[in-house]
């Protein structure tokens, strides 16, 4: 089965009852207009005198006309609210399956996501809704087919020739909207692209406003904006025109069909074979019939799109997963609380004695960066520092060890045993990680630290103290309940780094891995942090084994083992004393660091020398 067919079938089967009941509820909404048309026919035949009847009979028919619409409205209301569950549930199912795979499936997640998280979200939002929409469309498609078949049959009993002729404009609309939809899509994406270009240009202009103003380039910059604007206008107008054309072709079909009915029915009407009521019936049905080519066109348009969506979503999943994993029934919890994952990690029963990387290589695509054949051995209770110049591969090494980046060669061993998938093995309680670019979520500080773990405020306070964050916490109005992250209180870079360090600490891992903190922490604070973490390690309140990326003196002086990287290779390894003696790269880095730290201290005349 093709992947898209599998997903479509699963979306139907995963909640078959709701799909079928919802579909059956919806069908009358499409079919009931048959009755409205027949009522109109009866009313006009009585007005036109084809049938002899009293005024009261006409008024009853008019009341019936309203009654039919009331029934249709009620059914639509119920069907819509009932069907909403199925729609949202299936969308949630797909999204949860993708997210779970991205965040928990074996194998590194790096490289599976497109270059911006915004784009991943767009896939989870739009590709998912495209797929669900396609399946959802099957119901009105069936309804419209039913209506059209019945309507054409009824019309054929009145006048088969006119009925046959009326099929022609329907086919024309169908073909036209099929042809146009590709053009409309292209024009639309071009207009959107040029709109984004204008937005980006305005953003760049104001990001670089200082350079522009000091260079006096305001007029030239505005002239370019004018050019961007003109291009965008032309594209936007074309886009609008094309989608209008598509819309117009439908309403024009109704008008043309009505005109055709008049044209063709003229002789029959003069003869009295085609009544005023028949005219009303035909014009009423013609309006509804245009829905058929449109919906068929839409489904045909959505089919290839759905295949692309399936493919794009599957690419977000792990390499060993397919469309089956994407669409499996993993449950939906709209009416009751979802099952919460266990708050504490089960004891893994294999406490760290030694963790080792052998011959680890990561080749970044062609750029020459990356790491090559790195051996690393970390014993319980040791403090290991990875250091090196900018671009020497420190972060890459750590990410490869933790299985966050794919290692092209080499392997990781835990207590001498090969680790099959470091990405799912080196997690709490074995290892925890504070990355270089700290990520906090728009939630309370407590939630950001715990992320689902159980832990009381005392645990959190301990972790925050180890991470030298207690001052930051004291400044917060709502303490641990303060909402932080992009949509909450903006923490400074240093605060965010210490908060993510606390997040790793609270998980009490055997091995704590901390990437470079120096970009946002000053020398003093970083020193305090290492003092605190080492202190906690000594008296068993914190992780005993540390792997740290740093070039700061405070970390290097404390290290049991330093690994010096230079352009992705080990340039030296040992204690600071050994390395300063026999590793030129270490000497160079150490000297540079002394200059930088001296300057930073000199900028704080209040505490000369620290």
């Amino acid at each position, binding site marked *: 089965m093709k992947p898209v067919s599998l997903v479509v079938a699963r979306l139907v089967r995963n909640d078959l009852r709701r799909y079928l009941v919802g579909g059956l509820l919806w069908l009358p909404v499409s079919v009931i207009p048959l009755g409205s048309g027949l009522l109109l026919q009866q009313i006009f035949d009585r007005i036109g005198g084809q049938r002899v009847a009293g005024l009261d009979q006409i008024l009853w028919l008019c009341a019936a006309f309203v009654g039919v619409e009331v029934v249709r409205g009620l059914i639509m209301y119920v069907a819509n609210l009932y069907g909403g569950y199925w729609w949202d549930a299936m969308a949630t199912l797909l999204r949860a399956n993708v997210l779970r795979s991205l965040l928990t499936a074996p194998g590194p997640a790096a490289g599976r996501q497109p270059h911006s998280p915004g784009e991943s979200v767009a896939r989870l939002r739009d590709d998912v809704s495209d797929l669900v929409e396609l399946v959802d469309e099957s119901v009105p498609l069936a309804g419209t087919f039913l209506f059209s078949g019945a309507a054409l049959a009824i019309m054929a009993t009145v006048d088969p020739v006119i009925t046959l002729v009326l099929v022609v404009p329907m086919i024309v609309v169908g073909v036209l909207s099929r042809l146009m939809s590709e053009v409309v899509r292209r024009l639309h994406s071009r207009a959107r692209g040029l709109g984004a270009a204008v937005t980006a240009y*305005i953003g760049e202009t104001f990001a670089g406003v200082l350079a522009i103003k000091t260079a006096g380039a305001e007029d030239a910059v505005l002239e370019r904006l004018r050019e961007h604007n003109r291009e965008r206008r032309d594209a936007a107008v074309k886009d609008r025109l094309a989608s209008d054309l598509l819309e117009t072709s439908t309403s024009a079909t109704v008008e043309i069909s009505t005109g055709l009915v008049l044209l063709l029915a003229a002789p029959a009407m003069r003869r009295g074979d085609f009544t005023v009521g028949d005219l009303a019936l035909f014009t009423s049905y013609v309006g509804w019939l245009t829905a058929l080519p449109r919906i068929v066109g839409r489904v045909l348009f959505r089919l290839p799109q759905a295949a692309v969506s399936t493919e794009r979503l599957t690419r977000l999943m792990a390499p060993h997963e397919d469309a089956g994993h994407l669409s499996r029934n993993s449950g939906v919890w709209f009416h009751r609380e979802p099952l919460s994952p266990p708050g504490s*990690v089960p004891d893994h029963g294999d406490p760290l004695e030694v963790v080792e990387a052998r011959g680890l290589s990561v080749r970044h695509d062609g750029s020459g960066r990356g790491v090559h054949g790195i051996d690393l051995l970390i014993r319980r209770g040791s403090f290991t520092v990875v250091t090196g110049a900018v671009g020497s591969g420190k972060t890459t090494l750590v990410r490869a060890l933790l299985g966050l980046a794919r290692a092209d060669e080499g392997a990781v061993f835990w207590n001498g045993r090969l680790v099959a998938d470091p990405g799912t093995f080196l997690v709490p309680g074995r290892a925890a990680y504070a990355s270089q670019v700290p990520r906090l979520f728009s939630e309370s500080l407590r939630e950001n630290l715990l992320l689902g773990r159980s832990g009381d405020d005392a645990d959190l306070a301990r972790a925050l103290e180890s991470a030298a964050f207690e001052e930051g916490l004291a400044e917060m109005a709502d303490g641990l309940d303060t909402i932080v992250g992009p*949509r909450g209180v903006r923490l400074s870079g240093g605060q965010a780094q210490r908060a993510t360090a606390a997040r790793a600490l609270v998980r009490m891992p055997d091995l704590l891995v901390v990437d470079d903190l120096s970009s946002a922490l000053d020398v003093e604070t970083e020193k305090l942090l290492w003092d605190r973490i080492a202190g906690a390690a000594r008296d068993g309140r914190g992780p005993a084994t540390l792997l740290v990326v740093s070039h700061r003196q405070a970390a290097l002086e404390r290290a049991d083992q330093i690994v010096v990287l230079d352009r992705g290779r080990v340039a030296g390894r040992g204690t600071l004393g050994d390395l300063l003696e026999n590793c030129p790269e270490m000497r160079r880095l150490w000297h540079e660091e002394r200059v930088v730290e001296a300057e930073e201290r000199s*900028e704080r005349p209040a505490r000369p020398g620290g």
Partner: protein
Amino acid sequence: MTIPTHRATTRSSVLRHLRPGPRGAAALAVSVVATTVLPLLAPPLTGHFVDDAIGGASTRHLVLIAAGYLALALAGQLARMLTAWLASRLAWDGTNRLRETLAGHALGLDMAYHGRRTPGEMIERVDGDVVAVAEFVVAFLLDVVAGVLLLAGVLVIVSAVDPRIGGFLLVYCVLTGYAMARAQRLAVPSAARARAAGAALFGGLEERLAGAEDIRANGAGEHAVYRLYQGSSAWYRANYRSGQIGVGLLAGTWVAFAAGTAIALGLAAWAQRSGAITVGTAVLLFQYTLMVRAPFERLIDQLRQYQAALAGVTRIGDLLAERRTLPAPADPRPLPVTGPLELSLEGVGFAYPDDGEQVLSDVTLSLAPGETLGLVGRTGSGKTSVARLVLRLYDPTEGAVRVGGVDLRDADPSSVRSRICAVTQDVQVFAAGVRDNLTLFRPPPDDSVLRDVLVDVGLGDWLASLPDGLDTVLGGVSGTGVSAGEAQLLALARAFLADPGLVVMDEASSRLDPATERRIERSVDRLLRGRTGVLIAHRLSSLSRVDKIAVIDGGRVVEYGRRENLAADPTSRFARMLDMAGVSR
């Protein structure tokens, strides 16, 4: 009373930018009228057709009427498309004008304004608000103006045919319109809540995808999925509640229109029975009743857009009301046209206009033409403020800044821009060609000049590696990426092209790889050769290359002198710094 008047004036001044030219306006008016009138002409033809068919007119006559109907229908659709085309073109022209005015106005504002705003905020002000207004203007012309005209036309014609049915239709329209507008307002809060729940769901998802590695490595993946379930559930419930009102409203609309149609039909039947109208007229009335529906639905839809557009117009007005704070000189004097410029700060004090806190006091510094000064001091000490005053991004609150002997407050702004150049550490690379990135979109000099400058700053190999040379598009989604070091060198190349007499430079504080750092140092040396320079230093090594050093602390110059003298004096702060770093003096 003053506030509404003020609002009304900003509103009208904003809308003035959107007004099309007289020819455009006339074309649009004609096309809108055609869009309205042509569909109104069709039902009488159907009426005639029915009456004449019943009356036994010739087939030829009936066919002619039918053909006329067809022609009218087609012409009506064409007119509608023409209006749509004209309206969107004129609206885009108008809103583009507004966008350009806003961007120009904002660019003209001082750094005091820009310092407080992020580029994202400016995008919202200059583009986001305008888009909301643009969409409304197009829709207004098409749906509101054309819709109201059509409704009025239907009411007039129906009243002419039968005043009683016309009267009923009028009452019906007013009542339905009122009810729909009220119900619409009822639906707004729950719809907004549903949108907010969706935004929260996808916003949270985006944050978690961006932090995927933090989550994985800390074993919080299942918890993130759990939060997705919670967010989706909240979203579903909000959708359900919003659906209860929204779908109910839709069903209500269906029934209301069915009722209107039925009552009109009943009245027509009654009138026909009483001999007041013919069968054809009854058909005609029925068709007019059906015509009411579409413009009605569109009008109601626009009510929602109106609020958003109004908020946009108000914000646009606020931006246009912002004024420059730096006064233009009454009698502008040009700076010396060639050669390095002398710089002197005399007893300069400064406070930022928004908080009034004194950031500089009694700063006195002087540089002879061609001399370079290194500004040293911790973050927040005031060295950046000194640089801003030298660039005349602000005026001092006390004392004076003189360049080439001219007080900057009296200097011709265009000569300040052309003779004083800033090199900042955050370099904005535009999603544009290399050429535009070098000249900031101004008319470029010869390609050979540009190439030479790039080679001079050490970007020769980089240029050679670009697929389209100087035409290569940089940055953006599809452009060639530029590394931090390359961006720094590009900024230096911009400065070389400007050929200024005074360079104010903020050294990059972030670390680059050693090879790039050396390239940048070499280029800075070349740039400062034969030019007066003020260098905000973040590295001790850069200070070996300046003539004078000023150590700033708490907004005051605490140490100032020639570099060699300070280095020789073991009690100076500068010497202590060198000692601490183990650098030989």
